[in-house]
């Protein structure tokens, strides 16, 4: 009985430590999904109190490239709401611990389904090795140079992502234009033929009926 108590205490401590690790774990999610017309899709994430989170979103394809977005805190209050936005960025420091939800709505559109990209980042980036959080000494020059380069490269990767999304959007529009030009040209040629034939036929029909009347008038 004497040895059981400290063992269970150490197990408890380990579990508590694991729980703390989970609680402190900064997370990020970057997803691109399809939003059908008249639909709403929501995502939820648990955020600790005092942690800053940011949401970037952008519409890539579909319709007028706009979407409604709103963010709710665990108590149900709307902390962010925008309608018909093409892209936006929203940061917030969580005041209440709990599950925050953010939703994208395409309910205003009747026939265009959209592709939406969002990037939801919670907290800061974790250190590269888990035990580096409790350093005693300061970083050496090499290490701080590495950290600087790492941050700069992250900025480069982020701007590459944004550039890729913009390019995808432009390319979607260009391909749309290409197919619209084809359909419009074929349609207009058909319309042209139909109109010219029916003009001639109509004109002929006028003169075929009136002929006896004009003969009667002239004589």
């Amino acid at each position, binding site marked *: 009985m004497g040895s059981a108590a400290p063992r269970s205490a150490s197990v408890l401590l380990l579990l508590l430590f694991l729980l703390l690790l989970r609680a402190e774990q900064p997370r990020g999610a*970057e997803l691109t999904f399809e939003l059908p017309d008249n639909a709403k899709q929501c995502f939820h994430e*648990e955020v600790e109190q005092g942690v800053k989170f940011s949401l970037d979103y952008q519409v890539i394809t579909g319709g007028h490239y706009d979407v409604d977005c709103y963010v709710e805190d665990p108590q149900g209050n709307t902390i962010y709401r925008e309608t018909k936005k093409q892209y936006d960025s929203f940061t917030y420091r969580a005041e209440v611990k709990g599950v925050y939800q953010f939703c994208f709505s395409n309910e205003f559109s009747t026939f265009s389904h959209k592709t939406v990209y969002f990037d939801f980042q919670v907290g800061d980036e974790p250190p590269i090795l888990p035990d580096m959080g409790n350093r005693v000494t300061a970083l050496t020059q090499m290490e701080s140079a590495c950290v600087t380069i790492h941050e700069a490269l992250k900025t480069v990767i982020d701007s590459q992502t944004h550039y890729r999304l913009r390019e995808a959007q432009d390319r979607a529009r260009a391909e749309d234009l290409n197919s619209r030009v084809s359909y419009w040209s074929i349609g207009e040629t058909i319309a042209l033929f139909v109109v010219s034939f029916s003009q001639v036929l109509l004109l002929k029909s006028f003169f075929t009926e009136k002929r006896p009347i004009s003969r009667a008038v002239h004589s």
Partner: protein
Amino acid sequence: MAGVGLGPLRAMGRQALVLLALCATGARGLYFHIGETEKRCFIEEIPDETMVIGNYRTQMWDKQKEVFLPSTPGLGMHVEVKDPDGKVVLSRQYGSEGRFTFTSHTPGDHQICLHSNSTRMALFAGGKLRVHLDIQVGEHANNYPEIAAKDKLTELQLRARQLLDQVEQIQKEQDYQRYREERFRLTSESTNQRVLWWSIAQTVILILTGIWQMRHLKSFFEAKKLV
């Protein structure tokens, strides 16, 4: 005597269970709800030779208790991954908790679709499914503590490895950008060509149709002795 000794142990056991339960139900990040056989698709636009790792965990809604059960055995998710040409890269059934990996061989939009193949339709009727999802692409998929342990790297070497991975990802993305830009340019030039040729063709058709109309009507009126 025995009751007094066991009491604190039992209390500790209960606390341990609570903590364990909290650990188990801790959210693995983002989650969303899907219906019974609803399919949810995500698109990842990636360059070639990029590894994508996806982790998911599902929880089923318990209608009586009005809470999400921590884990549900017997609940499976079908994961299907299609490459930009529409070819299926991965199509597998996983359990209620799973991890899928694939490497892209063509650059472009890869579609990752998930839907549940529930084996317990009766219990599930009208229920919701909560899916925790985490998709990591390229350099983000690397697990650095694991790499450090496996290759026995110091912190500085690990940082250098991370920087190398990041730079490699940037290079791949730039190559992919060049490929995309070429496609975009081809599309624009095709539109340009089409507009040019169609406008010339339509002007020619218009003139020819006009000429035909005039000649046809002229011969018609001459036949009717009106001209």
